[in-house]
């Protein structure tokens, strides 16, 4: 297993929106082992409060040396991360979990909502590298333009076309990503890779079920360890019982989960 516990140096901190930040971290080990959809567990403080690490998707890697995480400040851990300084070191575990399993030569659609867009950038970039002929269809949603436009810009920089939707209509379509999906025609072979708030993933799953498209979703749960040890991060599965988001996922075949997940 290529997992590492690293003191990674923060080489860059960018504030993309009022409460959205992107950190660039130096770790050749993690950067070169990472797969799209995998995540890292980050210690947000040297103190014992908050105690536990926080999970973040790997949002991008570069030069096999750096990787990025993109996050929104929602509580104390993310607030501490936002107050870090360049040059400081963060303790990071990773890369963890199972990423997206995609057929790079098939038609692909990436659907992201909010911070769920983070792992899709990594996935989109990988798709472009692995298959020059075909570009994935990208559908991104967020609350408003301020939050969405810096993320859309990243995809555009890769040369990808983005279909956007915002809750308030300030960028792209006024509404949900599923409203956008309904207006696109997908080939039957199209495979969906989805990450975002659970209600959104549920909606996309049902859209895919109807259209009989393959659909993978990346699940977010509370996590204490990130490596299959605490059994805290469960999601109910179709066949009964639970799977563990950190070690069986976080990316699951949507059909194997027991919807609706709360």
């Amino acid at each position: 297993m290529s997992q590492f516990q690293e003191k990674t140096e923060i080489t860059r901190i960018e504030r993309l929106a009022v409460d959205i930040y992107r950190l660039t971290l130096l770790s050749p080990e993690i950067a070169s082992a990472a797969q799209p959809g995998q995540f890292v567990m980050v210690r947000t403080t040297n103190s014992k409060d908050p105690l536990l690490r926080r999970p973040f998707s790997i949002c991008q890697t570069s030069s096999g040396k750096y990787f990025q995480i993109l996050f929104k400040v929602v509580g104390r851990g993310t607030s501490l991360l936002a107050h870090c300084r360049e040059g400081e070191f963060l303790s990071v575990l990773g890369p963890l979990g199972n990423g997206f399993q995609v057929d790079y030569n098939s038609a692909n659609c990436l659907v992201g909502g909010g911070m769920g867009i983070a792992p899709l950038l990594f996935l989109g970039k990988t798709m472009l590298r692995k298959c020059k002929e075909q570009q994935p269809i990208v559908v991104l949603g967020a609350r408003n333009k301020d939050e969405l436009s810096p993320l859309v810009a990243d995809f555009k920089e890769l040369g990808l076309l983005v279909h956007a939707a915002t809750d308030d209509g300030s960028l792209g379509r006024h509404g949900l990503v599923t409203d956008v999906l309904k207006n696109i025609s997908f080939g039957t072979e199209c495979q969906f890779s989805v990450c975002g708030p659970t209600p959104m993933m549920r909606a996309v799953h049902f859209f895919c079920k109807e259209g009989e498209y393959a659909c993978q979703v990346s699940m977010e749960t509370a996590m204490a360890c990130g490596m299959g040890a605490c059994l805290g991060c469960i999601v109910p599965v179709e066949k009964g019982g639970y799977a563990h988001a950190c070690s069986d996922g976080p990316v699951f075949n949507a059909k194997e989960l027991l919807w609706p997940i709360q």
Partner: protein
Amino acid sequence: MADTIKADLSVSIGSLKLKNPVMTASGTFGYAREFEPYVNLHRLGAVVVKGISLEPRAGNPPPRIVETSCGMLNAIGLENVGVDRFITEKMVSLQDVKVPVLVNILGDSIDEYREITKRLAGVAGIAGIEVNISCPNVKKGGVAFGTVPEMASAVTRAVREESTVPVIVKLSPNVSDITVIAKAVEEAGADAVSLINTLIGMAIDHKSRRPKIANVIGGLSGPAIKPVALRMVYQVSQVVSIPVIGIGGIETYEDVLEFMLAGATAVQIGTANFVNPRASEEAVEGLACYVKEQKLRSIRDVIGALILP
């Protein structure tokens, strides 16, 4: 690193010889293999695996865990594969890990404890059994075995009768006087006691007005509980003559020393494994340096060496 080998860190838990006093606590170290990327497992004193019941258990619905101030609550609900699959699947993979494996067991009746122990008897690679008695006794309306001396001693006796390896009884801290329970299980034949299991706690989200874990109440662990654990280890060490294994909020070698000074022969690291997966190995390294720097003949010199005012 080579130096580490020279410091005498060995301790004995009954007939069980450990190369050092640092174990990992049940439910916080998976089946050990999860930690291979971070820890040289064979450098640990022992690993204690997740609690095993007679039948497989799916565990509690989510959410199962929540962070609290300097701690966490869990209500995993004892999810496990059951003793038979544990033996055929997990123990097999644990065999190549060159570290003593202690199996933590639980049940909701004395018969169940007895039956699990029977099935584990003679299984290769099991160095000892740790009996979790914080579980509810279904026949007594759900009162935890570990809170009533008679029940604690009945479980101990049953497991002791069937076991071919040392039996460690893991005590619940949710009692008025833990020394009474400790004495009861010692008398019933326990080869050692380990303490503490989690304190019972609760967390509420005032916005949704709901408990933060689906099971409503859960077990509190982590640095928050260390003072309570240390006090109980100290108290129990005064009254029993079997070895005491200290558990609760331990992360560093300094924490280990505190528990040993209070009377513990060995310790277990729990929640800290989540925060720093290398915690257990780093504690061993720290103890080795300590023994050398202090020029101790053995780490055993620290056990119970607390100086009272």
